[in-house]
């Protein structure tokens, strides 16, 4: 009781203490608000950054697909029968005739194999497993929370 009286007395003797207290409370509120804004801005920036990166990745994927197609076409051009024939002629080879060939049996040899590898299948997007709370914005979260408070509680039937 004595301490309480002392504090009241102290504030009465120096009113600037009240102003300082109010200022401190305002500053605390301000810091909290700044923190909330900082979190919101940070989340928004990261989301935006991720969105932009996603757009870039999509365009990069398309670019790489075009690049792969072009490279395959270039390889095919370089190994086309016309180009190979030029190399063959340049190296002095000639087509073999049946008389040039010696046939031998090689156990386990299954003959010439095709050189085509099927491309990997398109990735199937799995269903999102992230809870909604991690994907919604702070304002959405607050708004939905407020809405939940106004909802009537479910009545459980006996």
């Amino acid at each position: 009781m004595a301490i309480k009286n002392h504090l009241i007395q102290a504030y009465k003797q120096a009113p600037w203490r009240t102003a300082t207290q109010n200022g401190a409370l305002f500053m605390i509120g301000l810091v909290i608000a700044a923190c909330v804004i900082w979190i919101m801005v940070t989340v928004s920036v990261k989301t935006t950054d991720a969105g932009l990166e996603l757009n870039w990745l999509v365009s990069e994927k398309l670019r790489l697909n075009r690049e792969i197609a072009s490279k395959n076409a270039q390889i095919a051009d370089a190994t086309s029968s016309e180009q190979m024939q030029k190399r063959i002629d340049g190296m002095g080879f000639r087509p073999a005739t049946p008389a040039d060939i010696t046939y031998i049996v090689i156990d386990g040899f299954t003959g010439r194999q095709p050189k085509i590898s099927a491309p990997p299948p398109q990735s199937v997007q799995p269903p999102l497993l992230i809870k909604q709370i991690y994907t919604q914005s702070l304002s959405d979260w607050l708004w939905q929370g407020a809405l939940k408070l106004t909802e009537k509680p479910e009545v459980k039937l006996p």
Partner: protein
Amino acid sequence: MKNQSFIRYWIVGFLMLAFSLLILGRVIYIQTNPKAPEIIKGGEEGVITIHIAYPERGNIYDRWGALLAGNMEVYELNADLNKIKDKEAIASVLASVIGADYGHLMAVMSTPPAKNVDYVTLARFVPKAKAEQIMELQKQYAADAAKRTSSLLKKNDDKPPSLFGLEFSPMLIRTYPEKSLAANIIGFYSYPEGLNAQGYFGVEANYDSLLGGRPVAYQQQNDPLQVKFPPQIAPGASLVLTIDRDIQKMAEEVLDNSLKENGSKGGTIIIMDPKTGEIMAMAVHPRIDLNQYWDYGKVYSDDMPFNRAIGTTYEPGSVFKVLTMAAAFDAGIVNPDTEFLDTGTVYVGGIPIHNWDRRAWGQQTMLGCMQHSLNVCLASLAVELGPTRFYEYLNNFGIGHLTRIDLAGEGNYPMHLPGDPFWYEVNLGTNSFGQGIAVTPIQMLTAISAVANHGNMMAPRLLHSVIQDGEERAYPPQLIGRPISQESADTLSKMLEASLSLESSKALVPGYSVAGKTGTAEIPTPKGYTSDVTNASFVGWGPVDDPRFIVYVWFEKPTSDIWGSTVASPVFKEVVEKLVVLLDIPPDNIRQEFAQTR
């Protein structure tokens, strides 16, 4: 002192309040500005863009994985008329790098095709290397301009060149690395038609939707906060064909050289595996470079089919005798040793039928009938079979029906049957040796392949497998009929092998057993068979005991000689001599030796 402290608080508070009021005022100004709805609408319009994604067109490979049709990156060069600063520089660079018309480019940029058009296309399908060259110049000019701006040496009258406003849109176009090789099989894709592009002829047309995939329309969010993964767009399926690039090249070379030597108007060589129906090569003349398919009209005129091996119907002549003899064997009315007295003429329906040399060949066996290609003998067999059985056999061999080969543009000429307005009794006789009946080369080959393949007729096909969704699915061979028994087929095969040996045919291949038959068919005119021009052909297969190939050679209107035996038979031999090397088929004696040691 205390009052001063309060004043400071008041000043800080006032400033913060003023700042807040300024922000609030600005917000109110923006919200109540008359242009606000316009700005909001503009923003909303830019948030979502509707895109139609066209899948990458599938590739086409030969059976070993050599790319026959693929895609290549090119660029479309556009000018944003609101951005361009230096039309002359753009036109000049494009003229020097890609050879565009300077005057045309200036006209396009100066007078856009319509009002409110602020985006014009300057060049399409610019190769990637050239586009990159222009991009480099664009960067270089921009860097130079930046230097000049900051330089003290800047002069007012010295305007640096600028390619600002020139934009590059990448895209894929169809490319055919082998140019004209197998052009008649592949067909082409009309990529310059943009959204209306489609496959024409051959595999490109027949499997157009499979190769093209399914376009997908989707909304793209430009708001980074709303961005979502675009839908996964599966590329079109890739096709692996049954053709072998090396065999195809060999067949085309042989065909082209032969055409020069024998002066034929056209020709075709088809090589098929009779056991599976897989086409290994289908060489046709003429062909076009598929990378310049727009020259199609210059090469193909007068309704000439793109692929004559499947699209041209003609009277086959004596190669057809194989089918008549097969029917006679299978019906049991003759065997190889059955004797026939050839008098040089037989009357069918009151019309005389003669041999090709108008001679009487006297006593012959069935072997002699085929060896000397006697029309009278074969017509007599057809008469003995009777029209019902004879045409039933032809029907079972697929004559008069499409083979349903998986290529666009297959032709067919319906067979005239008893009861039809254009069928006369004499047709029974003439049809037996391939006159008065029209087939395509692929029909003829498919029918006779049943004889080579122990009586089993396989569907001719080009599709070996489909690569889609990361898997390669093979398409199994399909049996489409057994027109004759195995015994009849094998007996006829051996007889035709003997026939070639006895006549010392130019089709014989040292070391390999081959069976076959020549064909020389007069080409009818409106007045009948009065011209000297012929269709010369040869069909043969081997090795006879274990057939790995059947080859059909056809020349239209050869000028060096009219006979199939002199024009087509040597070509068959040349093809087979090269084919056995490419297919690793040892000579018969070595093959049989290997078979015994295993």
